[in-house]
């Protein structure tokens, strides 16, 4: 036990003391706020610079009307098509929209000329305005007053409330739950790959530099493997904790700073479109606050840490075994498939099934089978998971990583002393069977 601690300590310090660790730990969280800040800066700058693009419109039907915005102004005229095109070529106009005489039941032949490819946004604005006008015209022709119609249109927003066993009500919002599940799942996925790879690299280093021979004459291979996995996991946790602290602090500074320079809502929208939408839908900031209050963050955080560590341990053992079986990282590629496939299934499953319907049968199985549960369960966790599902899933995950570690230990023990032998799945199987 003492020796495992020694190995953990060495693996931890050897990595944490490295300059690259310091750089990655400090720079990575800076990247997100930096990108966010950049967008906000551009957005704020755009507002200030206020450049207006004028678009010449020719409507042979004398029917359409386009409302000018901050960005685009529409000038209606009766120039012919060629003249309009010339105006664009001269740079007199940003664009030229030509609407020929047409049948409203089959509106074709509308053309937009621009010296640049028009943005999706512009085309959307144009299309929806024209469409609305045609629809109004048709309604009018069939005797319906557009004013009546708009009076009939009603906006509906459903407020969802979860009831727990005790009958306590909590305002919930699928978007927020989705966001939390999505983020947590992805983090675990990335964590397993990044730190699993570090385990593998570490094992290969010890094997190829032959330190292993000295190490295993002092400590049992299994202890060494365990120490390495735990030590590197601790490095990962340290890094994540620092990131969370840094991202939190810096993001709030950035948002706070720019938030003062632009309308609150827009800032929020830019920072997180989902939050913005949410506020539009529910209409008030208060509601969002209630939603956030309704989420049991402590429970989610604990679940996250459990699956974060459990998933890492489950796969970490495999990464160690692969590292032990090969002589160089390039040889490791052939054995990566059994690790990659379940992880990708979990990742895809998270998007396609779990986040879509956390209580479906597929979601249940994905979040219970140990190979996919660390990622898939996070998609369910934020929505609230039945106690038994969670217990079963956690129990299986613990059982899962004990078994994978045991299996990997057998491969590791033999593999680390094998040099220059071509290893394939058959050899691995043979190693597994030997005592």
């Amino acid at each position, binding site marked *: 036990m003492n020796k495992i601690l020694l190995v953990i300590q060495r693996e931890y310090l*050897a990595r944490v003391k490295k300059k690259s660790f310091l750089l990655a730990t400090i720079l990575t969280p800076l990247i997100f706020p930096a990108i966010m800040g950049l967008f906000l800066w551009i957005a704020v700058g755009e507002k200030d610079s206020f450049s207006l693009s004028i678009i010449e419109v020719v409507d042979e039907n004398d029917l359409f009307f386009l409302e000018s915005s901050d960005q685009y102004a529409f000038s209606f005229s009766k120039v012919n098509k060629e003249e309009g095109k010339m105006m664009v070529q001269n740079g007199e106009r940003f664009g030229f929209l030509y609407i020929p005489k047409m049948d409203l039941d089959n509106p074709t032949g509308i053309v937009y000329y621009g010296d640049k490819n028009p943005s999706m946004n512009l085309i959307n604005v144009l299309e929806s305005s024209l469409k609305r006008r045609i629809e109004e015209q048709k309604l009018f022709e069939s005797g319906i007053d557009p004013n009546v119609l708009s009076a009939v249109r009603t906006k509906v927003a459903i407020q969802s409330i979860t009831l727990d066993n005790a009958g306590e009500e909590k305002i919930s919002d699928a978007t927020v739950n989705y966001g939390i599940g999505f983020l947590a799942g992805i983090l675990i996925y990335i964590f397993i790959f990044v730190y699993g790879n570090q385990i593998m690299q570490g094992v290969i280093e010890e094997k190829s530099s032959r330190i*292993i021979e000295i190490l295993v004459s002092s400590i049992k291979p299994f202890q060494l493997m365990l120490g390495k996995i735990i030590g590197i996991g601790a490095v990962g946790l340290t890094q994540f904790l620092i990131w969370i602290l840094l991202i939190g602090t810096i993001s709030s500074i950035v948002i706070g700073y720019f938030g003062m320079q632009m309308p609150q809502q827009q800032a929020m929208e830019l920072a997180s479109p989902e939050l913005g939408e949410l506020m539009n839908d529910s209409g008030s900031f208060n509601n969002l606050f209630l939603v956030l209050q309704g989420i049991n963050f402590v429970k989610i955080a604990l679940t996250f840490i459990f699956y974060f560590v459990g998933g890492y341990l489950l796969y970490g053992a495999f990464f160690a075994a692969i590292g032990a079986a090969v002589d160089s990282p390039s040889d490791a590629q052939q054995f990566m498939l059994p690790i990659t496939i379940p992880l990708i299934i979990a990742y895809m499953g998270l998007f396609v099934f779990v986040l879509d319907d956390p209580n479906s049968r597929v979601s249940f199985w994905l979040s219970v089978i140990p190979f996919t549960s660390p990622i898939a369960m996070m998609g369910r966790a934020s929505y609230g998971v039945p106690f038994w599902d969670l217990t079963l899933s956690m129990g299986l995950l613990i059982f899962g990583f004990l078994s994978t570690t045991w299996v990997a230990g057998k491969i590791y023990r033999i593999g680390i002393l094998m040099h220059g032998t071509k290893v394939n799945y058959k050899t691995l199987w043979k190693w597994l069977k030997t005592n």
Partner: protein
Amino acid sequence: MNILKIINLNKTFGQTPALSNIDLEIPKGVVFGLLGPNGAGKTTLIRIINQIIDGDSGQVLFNNEPLNPRHITHIGYLPEERGLYKKMKVWDQLVYFARLKGMSGLEAKQKVKYWLEKLDVAAWREKRIEDLSKGMAQKIQFISTVIHEPELLILDEPFSGFDPMNAEIIKNEILELKQKGITVVLSTHRMESVELLCDHIAMIHKSKKILNGSLSEVKRDFRPHVFQIKIIPNGTIFPLEWGVEMDSELVELSIALNGKSPNQLIQDLIPFGDIIGFSENLPTMEEIFIQQVKLHSNE
């Protein structure tokens, strides 16, 4: 008193035997040469003694106790393929290895300090291994092997990678350790160091033990029964088969006994002049090695 006793040890990898019925006794306090051509099974034997792998059958006794994990502390091992953490500092690395062998932190630090000074590498303590020359790294590696003061030291090709100066230092360290009563198992292909250092030897070839005993015993067993004679001739003509040229003042001869005793040979020689030198030709370890490997290769 034997520090290590190996009884009927067998180990097979797949279909290939690595060790077949090996019996070996290593007395306490000697330098024991473990010889054999590449692939003979030496490394397998060493790994079993180090408890890196287990034998299939047979027994290994360390101080008359069946080998168990507690013995790890008492064994030091320098593998043929050297390895240290390249990015780790000399000091940290040595303390780590010492502690893995069961030393307390404080004790480990004291010992590391002692050895760094003893081998004149104290100035390198904050350097990373990747910044050291090969010879320097080898010294550090040697320290890592002896740092925990083992009773049994197993050195696999300890001189490879050292320049003659440093090889001399290591040789003296080995002799000094022997003086302290530490048993050293030396596995090497350099027969001159075997002659110089070893008291006992064993030779393994194709998984079998083919030779075992004290260095002098082994040499005696393999002497060709040829004597080296120095004689000042008195003019009597030597027998033709001796092939002596008469015109020199001192004649040196190599004569096989051919079943005679050495005394008889001397008597035969007396009529030819004054014998001023009479010594037996002993084979070098190199000769014995080559002869034995050739002999057993055809089995």
